[in-house]
């Protein structure tokens, strides 16, 4: 088996285990990433399954092109769901089914049998928690962005309750503003401390400051809370996309196969950061203007002491 045959055969192996599976493209990427992560480091097939971390998790250009090839060959077909999602399904078994080595076959079989195709998000979240190269990634993607999406979905525009953004309770499916805000500060505590990320970290901190005010607006249940929270969510994704453009550049963010892309990726990352700066300024300006009606909070003695200690130390440093 040649190196170029490894990925197409692994993809077919997925459908040999469960011929009825219909999977979004991103799920196939993630399954094969799990296969790669499970195989021993010196495994021959593992070496031909290169990935990098990007906007939606581990991504492989080789998997992407193999999917196109299998579609052209008529082995896989694309199906559109009612919601407009595209799924890959087995169209026809290949005339001569290719096989992978036993180790890889066992690994693919185990992962695919355990997969719940109706809950791919949980599978992806586990990948972030167990394999992401930086702690910031699961905290931001899984603990902040995903619950934020659910939070917005459960509070549609115009819905009014006694305090719509602050339901409280113990239901983990409806994260309230406090949990979201706490998750965001936990992300700030584990920012990637690499020179490449200095500028990004500044912008992230600006985002956290703005989001903190935005959550206060939501707590006060101001009439403009929905649009402020919506803007906070949109900025959260802008921030993530800029980060994802940077993380793949770091050694931990890509396999050596992609080293030839680094020059282009760096250029794209610089452009993404340059575009993020004015967006973050505009977001913070909007939040500041929206917060005008909120009365000032009077800090208690401990908070004053903490702030005083920081400012004094900063100025004498």
């Amino acid at each position, binding site marked *: 088996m040649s190196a170029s045959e490894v990925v197409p055969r692994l993809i077919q192996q997925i459908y040999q285990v469960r011929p009825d599976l219909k999977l979004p493209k991103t799920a196939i990427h993630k399954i094969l990433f799990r296969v790669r992560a499970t195989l021993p480091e010196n495994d021959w097939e593992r070496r031909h399954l290169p990935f990098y971390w990007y906007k939606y998790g581990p991504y492989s250009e080789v998997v992407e092109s193999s999917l196109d090839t299998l579609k052209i060959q008529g082995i896989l077909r694309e199906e559109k769901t009612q919601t407009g999602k595209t799924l890959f399904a087995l169209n026809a078994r290949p005339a001569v089914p290719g096989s992978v080595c036993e180790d890889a076959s066992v690994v693919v079989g185990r992962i695919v049998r355990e997969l719940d195709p109706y809950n791919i998000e949980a599978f992806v979240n586990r990948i972030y928690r167990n394999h992401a190269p930086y702690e910031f990634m699961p905290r931001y993607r899984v603990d902040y962005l995903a619950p934020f999406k659910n939070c917005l979905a459960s509070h549609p525009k115009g819905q009014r309750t006694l305090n719509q953004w602050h339901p409280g309770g113990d239901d983990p499916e409806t994260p309230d503003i406090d949990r979201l805000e706490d998750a965001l500060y936990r992300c700030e505590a584990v920012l990637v401390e690499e020179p490449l990320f200095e500028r990004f970290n500044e912008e992230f901190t600006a985002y956290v400051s703005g989001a903190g005010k935005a959550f206060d607006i939501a707590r006060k249940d101001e009439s403009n809370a929905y649009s402020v929270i919506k803007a906070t969510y949109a900025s959260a994704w802008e921030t993530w996309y800029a980060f994802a453009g940077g993380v793949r550049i770091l050694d931990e963010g890509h396999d050596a196969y992609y080293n030839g892309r680094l020059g282009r990726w760096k250029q794209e990352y610089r452009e993404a950061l340059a575009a993020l700066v004015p967006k973050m300024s505009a977001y913070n300006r909007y939040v500041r203007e929206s917060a005008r009606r909120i009365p*000032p909070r009077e800090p208690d003695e401990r908070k004053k002491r903490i702030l005083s200690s920081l400012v004094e130390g900063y100025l004498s440093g």
Partner: protein
Amino acid sequence: MASHHFLDANILIGSLVEWDGQHRRTHRYMQQGGFRRHTSERVHRECTGVLGRLRRTILQYLEYMERNLPACPDPLTLDRTIDRLTDRRVESLASRQERGALRSFVRKNREDFRNAVLGTEEERQAFRRDVIGAVKAVPGPGLPGRPRRSGTLPHLLPRRLR
């Protein structure tokens, strides 16, 4: 015609915290009426930028301590352990000002930090929330006197916060 006052970052922060003996004077000034207060977007950004960086420094420090302190620290040696870990963390910071801020934070809040470390998870969370809350009290639209963004006054960079 009302007179116009331009507020720089020293006054904005001085009205909230006692870091330079300015607090009483700036606080009294903020209570006064009869004139319009302005600040620039640049000054505001400077204030929030500095304070945001301080929040980040402390949150990273608390995370670092959480990971490195023993699960059940010995109260008798806790101060030494805190000092040793703090030294290590301070040395890893590139910015002189952030190093100063972290040292000052640990020195002036040692008792509270110590109690949080020896206390329950709730107490640790409460201390962390107070750090966040302290920086949230950043001068802004909610400040007494409501300084406004001005497009006509020249930008004035805060001297001491630079």
